[in-house]
């Protein structure tokens, strides 16, 4: 039993954080909003050069062969900068799903290219119906009832659905399923789709942790500067207690996210329960952070100009992406209301 990350994992987190904070500035996020693609192709190449796009790709396909536990701290850092590029959707969702599908031809065709940053895969399931970055993807993994399909983007029709978060590029995908595109059906498809939801929700939860931390940092900086009644507003207890409330919820949301990463990486049969728990508490922490940090920013928080909304809007969106609270509460409820003997002291770890 050891709930710590390794020195290597922590060092990698630190170097990725430094890179992202330098490269994914609020200024450059705003520049993407005004561009047609909404994305930064040069940054994607840099992410590939750092090995990030291939982290979960097996070594024989040109990747690093690492697990969701290895990537979870990096996912948190992606949240901290509100990274618009679909790194997590590729590394934490699409690649592991391709590996799970275990279609040799599909894997040989796509995994090396993903690792090299030359191809992207986007994912659409009923729980997450709007497909992020479908326009920039080469291949789409799509749920069709009780089947899973792999469809070249060129064979689909995309309709853009603008989001409150200008960084998110969401699409309705119209397409025709065929026996050629079907890669799994029946029970095996159901299992794959459940794991896709788990992986997507895990990525959302980790990002929510980073977003909450970023909103705290912005609000602490602002309330330490902004003066009213002759002193920084951050010295007032009402403001402090708003911020402390976020810190409490965030402090207790991290370990559930790391445990969920472990459950997913090891294919535990509690993975769905653990991911849903993590997604609910992490998104609640980010949601509370959004609510309290806009409040302590006063009117400035309600403007387009102040950067807070970049992070706040992403937190709102992630609340219901990859399964809304209803879906995740249902899954936790199914796990614990069936048999109360399976929970309680000593039942946390298998």
């Amino acid at each position: 039993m050891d709930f710590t990350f390794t020195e290597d994992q922590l060092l990698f987190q630190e170097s990725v954080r430094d890179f992202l904070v330098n490269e994914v500035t609020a200024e450059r996020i705003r520049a993407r909003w005004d561009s047609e693609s909404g994305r930064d192709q040069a940054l994607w190449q840099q992410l590939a050069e750092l090995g990030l796009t291939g982290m979960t790709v097996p070594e024989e396909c040109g990747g690093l062969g690492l697990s969701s536990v290895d990537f979870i701290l990096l996912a948190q850092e992606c949240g901290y900068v509100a990274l618009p590029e679909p790194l997590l959707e590729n590394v934490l969702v699409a690649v592991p799903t391709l590996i799970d599908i275990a279609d040799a031809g599909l894997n040989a065709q796509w995994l090396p290219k993903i690792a090299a940053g030359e191809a992207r895969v986007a994912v659409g399931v009923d729980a997450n119906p709007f497909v992020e970055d479908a326009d920039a993807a080469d291949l789409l993994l799509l749920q069709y009832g009780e089947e899973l399909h792999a469809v070249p983007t060129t064979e689909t029709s995309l309709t853009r659905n603008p989001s409150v978060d200008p960084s998110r590029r969401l699409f309705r995908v119209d397409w025709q399923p065929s026996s050629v595109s079907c890669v799994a059906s029946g029970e095996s498809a159901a299992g794959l789709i459940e794991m896709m939801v788990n992986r997507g929700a895990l990525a959302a939860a980790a990002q929510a942790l980073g977003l909450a931390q970023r909103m705290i940092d912005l609000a602490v900086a602002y309330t330490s500067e902004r003066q009213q009644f002759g002193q920084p507003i951050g010295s007032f207890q009402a403001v402090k207690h708003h911020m402390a409330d976020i810190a409490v919820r965030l402090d207790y949301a991290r370990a559930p996210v790391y445990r969920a990463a472990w459950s997913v990486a090891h294919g535990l049969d509690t993975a769905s329960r653990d991911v849903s728990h993590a997604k609910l508490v992490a998104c609640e922490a980010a949601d509370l952070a959004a609510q309290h940090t806009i409040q302590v920013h006063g009117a400035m928080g309600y403007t387009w100009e102040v950067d807070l909304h970049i992070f706040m809007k992403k937190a709102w969106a992630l609340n219901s992406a990859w399964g809304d609270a209803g879906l995740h509460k249902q899954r936790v409820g199914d796990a614990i209301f069936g048999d109360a003997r399976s929970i309680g002291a000593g039942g946390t770890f298998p």
Partner: protein
Amino acid sequence: MELNFTSEQQAFRQQVRQWLAAHVPAEPLASFDTAAGFQQHRDWEATLNKGRWGMVTWPEDLGGRGCDLIEWLIFEEEYWRAGAPLRVNQNGIFLLGPTLMEYGTDAQKAEILPKMATGEEVWAQGWSEPGAGSDMAAIRSRADLSEDGSHYVINGQKTWSTRAVWADQCFGMFRTDPESKRHRGLTFILVPLNLEGITVRPIPQLDGLPGFAEIFFDNVKVPVERRLGGEGEGWQVAMATAGFERGLMLRSPARFQETARRLVQLYRDNRESADRDPAIRDRVLRAYMDAESYCLTTYQTASRLMAGGKIGAESSTNKIFWSELDRNMHATAMSILGARAELLPHAPDAEGVGTWLDGWLFSQSGPIYAGTNEIQRNIIAERMLGMPRV
């Protein structure tokens, strides 16, 4: 990261489980806030100590097992699962014990720890005073060193002193430098409660039982050997004790996970009436998740401390998290019980109410004692987040 127990840890769990199965009293003990119940709990401490299960984290030569924090968590899980009695001497074994090991002289350790371990001496704490609650540095009770330097003469009053009605000893802070202000000039002193000049006046708590007391000191002579740490260093010693209190040792996750388990069971047993209020299912879910989050976070902290890390302001987020969780869980149980919720356990029609009412009353104290949650929020904002002090 390795979230499985080793085979040694699993064997340890089995060992704890077997001993508890053979020794935990079949009938629950009376409340330790009654004279009879206090004696029963004192006897239970002796039983635990005989099996060397009283202070598992203490070193072996002091009657412990030298357990690390993960083993301690396993022990606690089994202890709460087994429904074993509450620890009447928790102020001693979890707060003063570790402080003594850090600051005590060899003579103090030899004199105090063995009797603490057997339950022969039960400890109360003396922090608060009528004018010093959240503002602990406002302590006014005096301890004046005698001219020959052999003893202190204590005058003043302590209050909200938990377990003091039947306890044998009390530890607390007293002002030894009359000219001093705030947290300077305070000294940590260990006071036997049978000394001449001490009056203990019980204070009934919310349940009507005298769970705490006022202690009056009227020219009480305490040998200087009963000082813990240096004169005027009381604040530093007390902070170490308060750190243990807010930190890991007292609020083991197992306690809250067992409450959550019982709450899920209560909801299942009363589903039809409970579901008329759609909020209840959500509150039960939340209880499970928060208790689980608390456990996971504690294992994470324990792992970090075992790897050489230090505990910091997170002991303040900890205090807020468990105390609000505990209150919320009991509030949910009260809602599920409906009209029966207010009935005392021995009421003729109180079937199925269990111990929820007692727990509900006790849960009111969590956000208040050991530093109110408002004080904790200030600490978090200033020391953890770095927000400006006035």
